[in-house]
């Protein structure tokens, strides 16, 4: 695991696991959620909205990155950043709420 990656473990070694149909809801390969399987995955957290994503090791498209906070951002925040060039990391959102500058959390993109 890299420094900024979270860790997700799905352990069905002592369980019947999930069927192919059930596994589809997770968007993970069904064969890795079957009986007897244990899956370990890296997760990435968006710097702007704190959404946690499972890292797809097969992804070839570039992942969004904010050059201002120098951090991974999710695809939705990536689109917003390309359109507005506004960097508003979660730490800024928290600071603005706590200082009273914004009464409610205001993200860089509409929710």
């Amino acid at each position, binding site marked *: 695991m890299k420094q900024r990656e979270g860790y997700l473990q799905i352990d069905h070694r002592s*369980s019947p696991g999930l069927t192919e149909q059930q596994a589809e*809801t997770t968007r993970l390969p069904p064969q890795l959620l079957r009986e007897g399987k244990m899956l370990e995955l890296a997760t990435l957290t968006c710097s702007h909205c704190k959404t946690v994503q499972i890292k797809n090791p097969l992804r070839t498209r570039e992942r969004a990155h904010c050059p201002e906070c120098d951090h991974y951002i999710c695809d939705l925040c990536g689109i917003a950043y390309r359109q507005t060039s506004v960097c508003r990391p979660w730490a800024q959102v928290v600071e603005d709420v706590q200082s009273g500058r914004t009464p409610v959390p205001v993200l860089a993109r509409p929710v």
Partner: protein
Amino acid sequence: MAKRVFQASNWTPTATADTTNLANATYMALQGGSATQNINVNEVMIEGLAGSSSPTILQLARDSTVMATPTALAAPNSDGPLNPATAALAAAPVSAVAAGTAPQRAATTTLARLNFSLNAFGGIIRWLAARGEEFGILGNTASNGEVSLSAFTGGTVGAVSAHIVYEPF
């Protein structure tokens, strides 16, 4: 500013659609202790306890309706600091499995939601955030001020035990 763990033992979620009242004892909800409190969720672990195959679609999701008049936790459920030397908080986060006004899981597609699908017949899921990459809760109002761990529709839900490690600031 110390890590705490909120855990509920041997509870059975109920498959519930988004924006629908979550029935008491079928969820774990964590709400900010004040309008400006910031909380980081560091870890979620769920252990299946069902006695037969029970595909369970659990989700840690933000709530579009936050709970009101929450019921104080009763044993064996608990919420306490990991370090016994931790001082009492001025605004303690609210952790509950029952409330007078039930929380409702948000349906907004652009809000963060963690999916923890497992077979509760022996399945285990654990998510651990890297430092600085935690799942955030801010304030105590919808939708960023509360998260709940509950079962989405589908599957044949089974009993689980779960804990959420978090750090209020």
